[in-house]
Structures are given as C-alpha cells and as structure tokens.
C-alpha cells in the first residue's frame, strides 16, 4: 500500500519495464515485466492484459510466474502483436499492463492432480503445479508439443511435479503422440482427482474427452478474444453448459466437460483476415529480422 501513496502527486505510471526477454523455443518467447501491482497480487490461473504502445491492441496473456515485483508471460509469436512483443529486449517498455485478471484456479487438497499443457499453453502450468503442490497434492505433469523444438518449461515442470511426462507429435522427444495418450496411461495407473488441461482450443477439446469418459473433474483455461478483460465488453463470451459466460470474469477456467469448444474456435477466427493484414504490414516494416535492427 505504501506503493500507491509514494506516488501521490506524481504523474500516472507511463510504461512498464521489460527486465528480461529471451526466446525459449521455436517462436516461443518469455518476458519478465516489472509490474508490482500485478506481481504482488497474482495467483495461479490468472491473466494480465498488455498493450505494447499507443497504437497497440489489448491482448490477454496468462501469468506464468512471479518473482518479487516481476511477472513473467510466455507467448508464441503468431500475430502482429505477439511478433512485436518478441522484438522487445530488456530495458524496453510496455505501455500498459493491467491485472491480475480473472478468477484464480480453485486449488484444494484434492489428492492426485494432473496438469496437462500443450504448446504455449504450458506457460501457465508451473504456477498451477506449484499451487497444487503447496496445497498438499501429488502432482503429475504432462507437457506436449508438436516437436522437441517447440517444447518449453520441461525443467521447471520437472522440478515442481512429482513426475513429469513429455509427448511430441513427431516423437522427437518423449512419447511419440499426443498428451492425451499419456493422460490415458496416467489415469490407468493412478486415477487423478483433478485435471487441468491448458493449450490450444483443439488440444483442450480432444484431451478433455479422455477425462470425460472417466468422470474426472477437469478444468480448461479458455483463451477467447478479449478487449477490456474486466467484464465490460462481452467479447470473450463462451458457452459453458449451454449458458453464455464471460471468460474474463467468470473464468478463464471452466469445467472442461461443459465447454462448447466449437463455438470458442469459431469465435477465435473472427478477425483472421485482419490478423493476416496486420502481420503482413508489420513484417514488411521489419523485413523478418525480428525487428531488432530497426527497433527504437
């Protein structure tokens, strides 16, 4: 609280400093941002919204880790904003960071928890794994990616989880196949009491079918398009159990077995054309060099 009073009379905060930025895997990057209001209050499962600069869009990113006043986000470069974010280096500033947003993961003493991460969705697994572990659960981690080159956070998950399994679609590391296959095996050995599945919508859809049959309570973290991220605009509405819910305030985590993934995936495509145009425009200004040579 001294934080806010110490700013009394000063101008409002302009910009949040990037303390560390590095590539983690193919097109996947991590950045640590100095944002005390987020870092000090963040809990597992929550997200933040960033706007890189005055002309930027607001995008949600899950909170991957916190350390003092720093908060880490991990993202895959797929569109204009994430490619631009990937050009940032330590010392750069992000114009706006708002959060923490959304409801934290519901963590209790469940018994055996399994946390399944796919692709860039692995980003928020360690923080949930740590929280589950701290609550006295036995934690199994399963992380999967297209190929070994896309895999992130193996070490961090390994340190936190009681056991960790790796899967790659092409067999370049760990199990040759989907995380869903590994989940099936895990369930066969030691039935989990709670499962989290976090990754691309299609991966969450497919993987949560595994636990549906077994009747295991399962949560997924949804990533629809958002604008404000605070419950004002309704852009992030998702259908859960036949009802319209807002991912930003009612989620982002929902009961996997009640989520209408097809609607989610269809709505995620709303701006495909615009996203393509924005990325082309950005690339033509940055000649594929990652933007660093021309940046600032």
């Amino acid at each position, binding site marked *: 609280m001294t934080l806010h009073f110490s700013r009394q009379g000063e101008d409002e905060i302009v910009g949040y400093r990037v303390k560390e930025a590095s590539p983690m895997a193919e097109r996947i990057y991590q950045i640590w941002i100095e944002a005390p209001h987020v870092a000090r209050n963040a809990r597992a499962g929550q997200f933040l919204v960033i706007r890189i600069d005055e002309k930027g869009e607001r995008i949600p990113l899950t909170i991957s880790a916190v350390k003092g006043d720093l908060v880490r986000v991990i993202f895959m470069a797929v569109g204009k904003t994430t490619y631009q974010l990937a050009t940032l280096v330590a010392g750069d500033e992000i114009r706006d960071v708002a959060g*923490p947003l959304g409801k934290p993961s519901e963590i209790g003493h469940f018994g055996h928890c399994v946390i399944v991460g796919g692709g860039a969705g692995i980003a928020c697994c360690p923080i949930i794994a740590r929280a589950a572990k701290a609550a006295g659960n036995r934690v199994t981690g399963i992380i999967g990616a297209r190929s070994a080159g896309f895999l992130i956070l193996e070490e961090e998950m390994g340190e936190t989880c009681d056991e960790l399994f790796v899967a790659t679609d092409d067999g370049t590391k760990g199990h040759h196949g989907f995380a869903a296959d590994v989940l099936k095996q895990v369930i066969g050995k030691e039935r989990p009491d709670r499962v989290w599945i976090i990754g691309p919508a299609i991966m969450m859809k497919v993987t949560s079918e595994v636990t549906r049959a077994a009747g295991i309570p399962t949560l997924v973290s949804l990533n629809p398009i958002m*604008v404000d991220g605070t419950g004002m605009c309704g852009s992030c509405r998702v259908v859960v159990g036949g009802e319209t819910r807002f991912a930003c305030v009612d989620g982002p985590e929902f009961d996997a077995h009640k989520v209408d993934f097809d609607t989610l995936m269809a709505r995620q495509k709303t701006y495909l054309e615009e996203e393509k145009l924005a990325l082309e425009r950005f690339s033509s200004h940055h000649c594929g060099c990652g933007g660093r040579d021309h940046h600032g």
Partner: protein
Amino acid sequence: MGERPADERVRDFSEVDTGLSAEEAVAEAQRCLQCKKPSCVKGCPVEIDIPAFIARIAEGDFAGAAQVIKENNLLPAICGRVCPQEVQCEGQCILGLKEVPVRIGELERFVADHERKTGSRLPPKAEPTGKKVAVVGSGPAGLTAAAELARLGHSVVLFESLHEPGGVLMYGIPAFRLPKEVVRAEIDQLRGMGVTILTNHLVGTSVPVSELLSYDAVFLGCGAGLPHFMGIPGENLNGVYSANEFLTRVNLMHADRFPEFDTPVRHAGRVVVVGGGNVAMDAARVARRLGARTTLVYRRRKEDLPARRAEIARAEEEGVTFVFCASPVRILGEQCVTGVECERMEMCATDASGRPEPVPVEGSRFVIDADMCIQAIGQGPNPLLVRMLPGIGTGRRGNVIVDEEGRTDLGKVFAAGDIATGAATVILAMGGAKRAARAIDRMLRNS
C-alpha cells in the same frame, strides 16, 4: 453555432455540433431573464448557479463565467455536450413556456471550450486535511467525486482498470459527440488539483480489498459492467457485438483506423443495431461512419425511444433506418452473421414506466439482411468489486444499495453512478457523486 451537414459529418468522427461563437454566446446569454427564483438551477443535478454564469457571459466575462461553473462542476465541457438539458435546466427555463428556452448547455460548453483554449484556472483548494480517499473508477461519477474531494482538501487516488481514464466518456461516447481531447483536458485539471490517477489498476485484484479499506474513505464509481444480450439463438456468431464492445473497439482502441491502430473491428456492409437508448444511437451513428447501411430495430414506437430527441434526429439525418415495433428473435448465419430475423410487436397495456408493453404478433416474422448485429439493450452494474466487499448491501440487479448521500452499508464506503442506480445518465452519476463526496467530507472532518 452550427451543426455540420449530415452528409459531411457522416464521413468523419469530428464533432457534429461546432458550438457557439463568442458573439452568438453573448447574444444567447442576453436572452436570459435572470429570474429572481431561477427554476433552471432546480433542474441541474450538480446545482450550477446558472443565472450567475450566464450574466458573466452577457458581460463578455467568459473567464468569470467559467469560475462560477467550476464552483459546482469541474467537467463543464463534458456536461455542456452530453447532459440531457431538455429535461433538466433547459426544461425548466421559463422562456420555454412561450418560445425556446435559453440554450444553457451550449453556453456551458462555450465557456468551457473558451477557457480550455485560453488557459484554465483551477478552482481554489481547501487546506489539506491529511485524509486519504480512494476513488474507484474514473468515469463521470469517479471524476466528479475525485474533483470535489480534492477541492475540499483531501488527498485522492483515482483507480482506473483501463489504460486511459474517463470510463464511458472515453470508451462509450463517440468522439463526434464528445471529442476525446475535451475529456483529456478536463481530466488533466484533476491532475492539476493533485489527484493521483492510477490506470491499469483493477481494484479488488491489482489493489486488494484490504488495501482499499485502509484508506480513510472509499468512493465506488465502478459503473455498469457486464453487457446484456438478448438470449436469442445465433448470438455467438461472428459479427454479433455488444454495443460496449463495438464502441470500445472504435472509440477507445481506434479500430476505425485499423491497421494503423492494431485493434480491428469487422467490416460490415449492413449493420442491425438493437435498442432505443442513447447507446443504441451512438452505435448506429458509429456504424454509419464506418460506411455501413445501418438499421436500428426498436421494440416500441418512435415516441417511446428513450434516447435524447436531438440524437434521434441526428441519427435519422445521418441515414440510419429505423424499424419500430419489432424485435429480433434469431440471428441468422453459419459462422458469421447473415441476417437478423425479427417479429412485429403490438403495443398493448401501458406498463409501470408509462410505456406500452410490446407483445409479439403471430406470423409476423421478417428478416433484415445484415453482416453485423450490435445489441444495445443495457448492462448490469459491475459485479467484480462488489462481490469482494463482504457485508455491502446489494439490490436485486447487483447494484449497491445507497442512501441519499451515497452511503453504503459499509461505514466508510460510498457509491454513486451506475453501480448504485443501474444504467443512467452521465449527469445523474455526477450529481450522486457530488452528494457522496460532500458526505465523505463531513464524515472525515468529524472523525
């Protein structure tokens, strides 16, 4: 003064009404009868001494007029533009009985704009009290409370969850009705008075409730929240927006200037807007400016439209088509919107609000072709923070229950604006905020 011609203004986001010239303002001010018992003041939710400021204008003392207004209202450039004067001050003006009332709103705006251009003077501030007040939300209620509390000598921190302060004044009301530099300039005056504005701070999470309650007093102005949807089939198709989302994308994020700005909004040749309030008019007029053929569907009759008359007329001039006594029953399309199926409504018995109750007519369904459907049918109070305040009394719709001075059930927590009243007007929020700020001041001085 002037309203720019419809065919010109529909092509841009510049202000529709260009305001009064100095000569016009003086002439208009001279029409005022300077009533001994002015009824216009009774119509003003923030009790501006209207005859006094108009007298200054008539004498050509524009700066003096500004000072008079600012004794009661630190946001005159905003109020002059968006208050429904026709049912407030101007509605009470005695001249209105025989001819047209004095255009008080235009005069207020003139004075504020003149001052902004010639250099603002801040109103005097009371001696510092050493008391700290947290104001949650920087919309009309929060700005008003912050200004009033700062003027009374308290130290104020204003929290805003978005990246820019102003709330609905920034994200909701389009620039052609309320230019954003006008809002920014009035907010800068708050900074000038020592108010600390913290953007990107969502109270309840970025600022824990325990920290919030450590302030000497708290004012909640967190406004309306979740937008309502009609609950009809097809609402999750791509191209269905709440008015909040559509307006935020354009007004706050500048989607009209995509790809220069990163935020997109769907391209639509034909837009259907559902609703009949000011927000519906704003959404329809923004859609027109994005180049869409725009149809507004309202379930009652034209005379029942809750929007301001002037805004309805402007929407009509700008080419918005109105379909009355009809209501959507289904939004058509596979993945994207292709049309809105509506049914006719019959006006039946008058309800409690004095308006007829619309009842669907059997077999009257028809389709309006559209690529976008914007629902402007209201929103509930923002539930986020309220849910985290144990013991605070809330009404059926989730609004915070307050007394006449904005007191909630929690001793040092006050509230005003949409969070307390449900969706209403800017000036009502400001009136409530001002009363609450004065009650907070009395409480702090007695403690």
